[in-house]
């Protein structure tokens, strides 16, 4: 029984860490963006302050059952997916007891399904609010997802085919044995996945879903106060999940928390840097972007893997 207690404690710790890291990365990004624009900018803890403020709103608008469930759905999906991601390398010493996960053979395919659950919850909730901006935002979001999922899946399929495994831990073990990170042994797949991550994080050229100027923040336009706060929490956990998945698959996982933070932060800066120098795409431009070179690189990666 105490084994289970320890695991639950570890799961809680994982969630809290994912939340804190995701929120802090968001805050650091806001600060860095401000410095790039020659501003002073907010503190890096600004997102936490925003969250406390949102949670201490006195009233919240109620738009129906699905609108009420959507934020819960997002945070549930985020925590579920988090449980299947090896936060640290399974071979690392005491960390593996503190960061347990429900890994099994085939979790990579399962993750491909589960990772869209947050967006699905958002789509259902936004649909109930009846705001036309939300509907347009959802349409754009799903279109964009069709765009970036293709290079992303191609990259993962290449790994799965080449190493004949669908387990994240096996892929991490393979990188351990060969001593080469996947980003060097499968560079085309890595590049395809990296391009896909630009769309996943929805920074500047691909911020067509939120689009504050024309869509009034899109799907979340009717959500305020506590709902928005819960959505923010779920979103920051999802950011951590995607980064950790990339580190596990392409950078050999991490043996300690500082190593994990360095690797994830380096990955996180790719979409942020790209965003600073890019204006927003239109929906069809974004899809054309993803179905162009990223997909070509992904197919090249698959061909090399099958070879």
């Amino acid at each position, binding site marked *: 029984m105490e084994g289970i207690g320890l695991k639950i404690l570890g799961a809680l710790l994982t969630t809290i860490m994912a939340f804190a890291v995701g929120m802090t990365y968001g805050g650091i990004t806001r600060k860095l963006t401000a410095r790039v624009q020659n*501003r002073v900018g907010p503190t890096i803890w600004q997102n936490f*302050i925003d969250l406390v403020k949102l949670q201490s709103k*006195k009233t919240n608008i109620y738009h129906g059952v699905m609108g009420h469930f959507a934020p819960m759905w997002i945070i549930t999906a985020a925590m579920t997916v988090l449980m299947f991601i090896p936060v640290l390398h399974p071979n690392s010493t005491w960390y593996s007891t503190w960061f347990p996960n429900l890994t099994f053979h085939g979790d990579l395919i399962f993750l491909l399904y589960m990772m869209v659950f947050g967006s699905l919850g958002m789509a259902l909730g936004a649909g109930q609010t009846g705001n036309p*901006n939300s509907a347009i935002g959802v349409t754009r979001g799903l279109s964009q997802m069709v765009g970036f999922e293709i290079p992303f899946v191609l990259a993962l399929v290449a790994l799965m085919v080449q190493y004949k495994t669908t387990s994240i831990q096996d892929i991490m073990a393979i990188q351990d044995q060969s001593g080469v990170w996947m980003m060097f042994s499968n560079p085309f797949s890595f590049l395809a996945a990296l391009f896909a991550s630009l769309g996943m994080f929805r920074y500047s050229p691909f911020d067509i879903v939120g689009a504050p100027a024309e869509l009034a923040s899109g799907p979340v336009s009717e959500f*305020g106060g506590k709902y928005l706060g819960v959505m923010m929490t779920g979103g920051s956990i999802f950011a951590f999940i995607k980064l950790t998945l990339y580190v596990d698959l392409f950078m050999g996982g991490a043996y300690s928390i500082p190593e994990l933070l360095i690797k994830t932060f380096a990955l996180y800066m790719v979409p942020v840097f790209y965003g600073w120098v890019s204006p927003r795409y239109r929906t069809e431009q974004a899809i054309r972007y993803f179905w162009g070179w990223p997909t070509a690189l992904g197919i090249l990666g698959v061909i090399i893997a099958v070879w």
Partner: protein
Amino acid sequence: MENKRNSQTIAEYIKNWSRKHSLFIMAYGTGCGAIEIPATLTSRYDAERLGIRGAATPRQADVLLITGYLATKTLKRVIRVYEQMQDPKYVIAFGSCTINGGMYYDSYNTINVLEKYIPVDVYINGCMPRPEAVIAGFQQLQDKIARGEADNGTRYKENLEWYRANQHRVIKNWRMPDYNW
């Protein structure tokens, strides 16, 4: 020693502190004041360092900025936006036009005193106020929030009949949905 917490509970103090440092503004850009808002928010005056950032919809916003004269037609929209905002909410009114009508004091289709239609927390005078004045106004609002005196939404609900009567007086074709806040 003055009690800095102003006899608030600890929880209320923390809440007010976070409200003070995270103001999402809904800029209702009527009149000429709208041009001062981009200057306040962008690189030169950088309001984001005080935790002030733009919100795209009234649902997410805390502060409603009324930046100038209000025609009766726009007043209707302002009331709809204001009523969609969630408590606690604050209103900042810019310029002479919102205080006493300013240069439009004898116009046939603008309102003169904004306070009669929605409660206002902070007035920034000037025609138009410069970004420094706007940021000073924001700091005044922040002090008010920290003291726990910014109760805009409650004031509106308590005196709803008075505000509604004033609104009906100027808006002849009143076709507005009822909000349950």
